């Protein structure tokens, strides 16, 4: 008789364990959730990067022939086609009763010629599209770019004809003008700003001394000296401005007309259709750098975001400097010193709930209490000679930082408390048993070990603060503040100044500007920058924390 094979008791008799019992659905659910979030983050970053960074790439210029159609759709006999020098922006598809219709938005530039800077063209009407090598894009301080063919250059020494092969004179002139422009900027930001400050101080002193005759005389002398210096500086400015005035660039625009542009306002001239890849890359880098390192122009729709970068960074750093000690001290008190009774628990619940208060409420509090009450009192006490013009009694850097510090305080407290709770009681006992007081134990054992947790708190605080905009609009952020809150003039960090912020800049450029199409790429670029900056600040703090954590990794 055949021996019956013994069944393996660990193999179930019937069907294998059901799909559901193995927790498979949950797994799939989790996995798809994670994938979806990653995809969304990836899409966001891609959108910002593609749109933001591509803006600085020298895009090709087209010579576009459009069939001129009348309102009834019939061909216009006298002028069958129209030539436009344009840059492609985007194509949109719309469905009509007659079928699908593709139309493309082109940028014609030359805003100040008044022919319309942007134009929608029905793809059916495009007769021809070419990329002539001689087309140039002229980037200007005002009025956006100009497109055309180089014609001639007027200099104080005469007129030079320009052609694609002979444009050396143009670039030399541009270099010269650039040098003068940066000298003017230096004079403006250095000497003239300093004189302004001195004049203001003098004015205050004058008001303070009242009728004291000998002092008044001295002040008068001082004033005379100042105004002489002022006149001198202004004369220098004027001279420099005049020295670049006689330069004019003539372009032939798409209609065939000649157009004279003052070279003093020209920033760069590109010939994107004949540029090599390396040249394009170079130009891209230059434009990107200009974006990062200069102030905005044309009511923020052009130029750079440098003041906004500085404003954001300074504000966030100041906020961390304020929130870190307060949050850490509060957490230490709550966890190490306070009796763990219902009162402490109530405070803790309160702190946790503070994190959920809408941020605009903090803005209102900052304005109502910090700016008007605290700032107003400060002004009365220390800056009474400047009144009625407020010093700290108006929105400014300090109040914005403190408001955000309040906003992020719960984050730091909670993270620090968690860190403190993780430290085993035995370490405290060990230190106390050696005769250390509670404070010594705290200072020498607990705080060093809890530092990474505190850093985590500050990191979270930074992450939250760097992206916060709403409360800032009430307590110090403005649309345009070219003067940086930090510079080389005493007291270096100007706590009372209003400042620019990348988050608010995105809002302003994107939604408050008149020229949406021109500003759109800058919105992406600024948003990307804000993301990069936030990540950068976070990364910095994370690295710092990991460095500290190394030391206690066995705990």
């Amino acid at each position: 008789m055949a021996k019956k094979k013994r069944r393996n008791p660990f193999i179930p008799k019937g069907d294998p364990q059901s799909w559901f019992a193995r927790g498979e659905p949950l797994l799939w659910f989790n996995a798809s959730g994670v994938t979806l979030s990653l995809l969304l983050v990836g899409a966001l970053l891609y959108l910002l990067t593609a749109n933001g960074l591509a803006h600085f790439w020298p895009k090709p210029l087209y010579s576009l022939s459009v069939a001129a159609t009348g309102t009834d759709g019939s061909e216009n006999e006298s002028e069958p086609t129209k030539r436009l020098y344009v840059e492609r922006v985007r194509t949109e598809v719309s469905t009509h009763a007659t079928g699908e219709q593709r139309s493309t938005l082109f940028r014609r530039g030359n805003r100040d010629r008044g022919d319309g800077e942007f134009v929608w063209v029905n793809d059916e009407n495009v007769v021809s599209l070419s990329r002539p090598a001689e087309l140039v894009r002229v980037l200007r301080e005002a009025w956006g770019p100009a497109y055309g063919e180089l014609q001639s250059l007027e200099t104080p020494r005469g007129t030079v004809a320009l052609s694609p092969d002979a444009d050396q004179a143009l670039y030399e002139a541009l270099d010269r003008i650039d040098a003068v422009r940066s000298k003017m900027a230096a004079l403006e930001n250095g000497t003239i700003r300093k004189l302004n400050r001195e004049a203001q101080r003098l004015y205050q002193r004058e008001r303070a001394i009242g009728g004291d005759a000998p002092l008044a005389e001295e002040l008068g002398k001082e004033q005379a000296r100042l105004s002489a210096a002022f006149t001198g500086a202004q004369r220098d400015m004027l001279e420099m401005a005049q020295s670049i005035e006689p330069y004019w660039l003539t372009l032939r625009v798409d209609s065939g007309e000649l157009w004279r542009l003052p070279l003093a306002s020209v920033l760069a001239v590109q010939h994107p259709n004949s540029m090599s890849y390396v040249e394009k890359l170079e130009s891209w880098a230059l434009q990107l750098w200009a974006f990062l390192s200069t102030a905005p122009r044309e009511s923020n729709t052009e130029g750079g975001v440098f003041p906004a970068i500085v404003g954001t960074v300074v504000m966030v750093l100041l906020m961390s400097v304020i929130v870190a000690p307060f949050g850490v001290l509060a957490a230490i008190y709550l966890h190490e010193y306070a009796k763990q009774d219902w009162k402490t628990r109530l405070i803790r619940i309160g702190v946790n709930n503070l994190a959920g208060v809408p941020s605009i409420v903090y803005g209102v509090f900052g304005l109502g209490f910090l700016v008007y009450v605290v700032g107003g009192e400060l002004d009365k006490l220390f800056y009474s000679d400047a009144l009625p013009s407020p010093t700290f009694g108006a929105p400014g850097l300090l109040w914005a930082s403190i408001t955000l510090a309040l906003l992020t305080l719960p984050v730091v407290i909670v993270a620090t408390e968690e860190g403190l709770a993780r430290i085993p009681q035995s370490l405290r006992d060990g230190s106390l048993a050696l005769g250390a007081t509670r404070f010594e134990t705290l200072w020498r054992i607990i705080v060093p070990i809890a530092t990474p947790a505190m850093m985590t708190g500050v990191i979270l605080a930074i992450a939250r603060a760097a992206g916060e905009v709403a409360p800032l609009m009430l307590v110090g952020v403005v649309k345009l503040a070219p003067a940086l809150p930090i510079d080389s003039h005493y007291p270096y960090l100007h706590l009372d100044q209003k400042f620019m912020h990348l988050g608010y800049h995105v809002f302003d450029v994107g939604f408050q500007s008149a020229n949406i199409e021109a500003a759109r790429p800058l919105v992406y670029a600024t948003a990307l920058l804000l993301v990069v900056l936030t990540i950068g600040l976070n990364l910095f703090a994370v690295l710092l924390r990991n460095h500290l954590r190394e030391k206690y990794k066995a705990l």
Partner: protein
Amino acid sequence: MSAELSLKPRHLLPAKANKRTGMNVSVDGLSLYYDRHTKALDDVSLRIKRQQVTAFIGPSGCGKSTLLRCFNRMNDQIEGCRIEGRIRMDKMDIYHPRVDVSLLRRRVGMVFQKPNPFPMSVYENVAYGLRIGGLRRRRELDEVVERSLRAAALWDEVKDRLNENALALSGGQQQRLVIARTIAVEPDVLLLDEPASSLDPISTLKIEELIYELKSRYTIIIVTHNMQQAARVSDMTAFMYQGRVIEFDTADRLFTNPKEKQTEDYITGRYG
């Protein structure tokens, strides 16, 4: 345990700088409540002599650690803990309201059941108590650190890694490091709460030898679950049960000829 695990000093310890040789401890009518209902110690009275090793034995939860923690007032840390009765060290009441507990704890050192080195270097661990005490000069610190590590029979193993993190040491080394840290401040009374509970036989032996050597300069009070260990190292042994000291006698007599039935049951392994 075999004969080669005998307790003979292998090296002579350097003399204690403060020349003191421990304190006599007397406990009178000590009761301790963790809260209103749990009485962890019930009318404990003991006389503990200097230059002797006194062991507390008893079943888990009988209050040995609690009693030990009374000697350096670690129970003060616990909220709601209340004490009645008196503990005196060389006639001085340690629960007098004006006593500074950090001063007391510098004289009454404690080694905990689980090794708890600080997450810093080996050197800094040993120097910690000295720095707290205000010693700053590097030369003196070096000297005391070496002396303490030698006394704890750890010097040879760590002399080349003094700057390494103490958490990288093995469990047995960590326990000896904690002992070194405690004797570095030269207390008079040493409280050891199951110092060898997590150690292998060799490390255990080293610690027992250490206790034997330290005896002449300290009052040593040790809690242990290991009856043989208590018999080997202690001069006096107290058997505790449910918060009370049932029997307190010389180790010889308690282990060979217990007077109380409960003691006998416990040491012969008939308890619970």
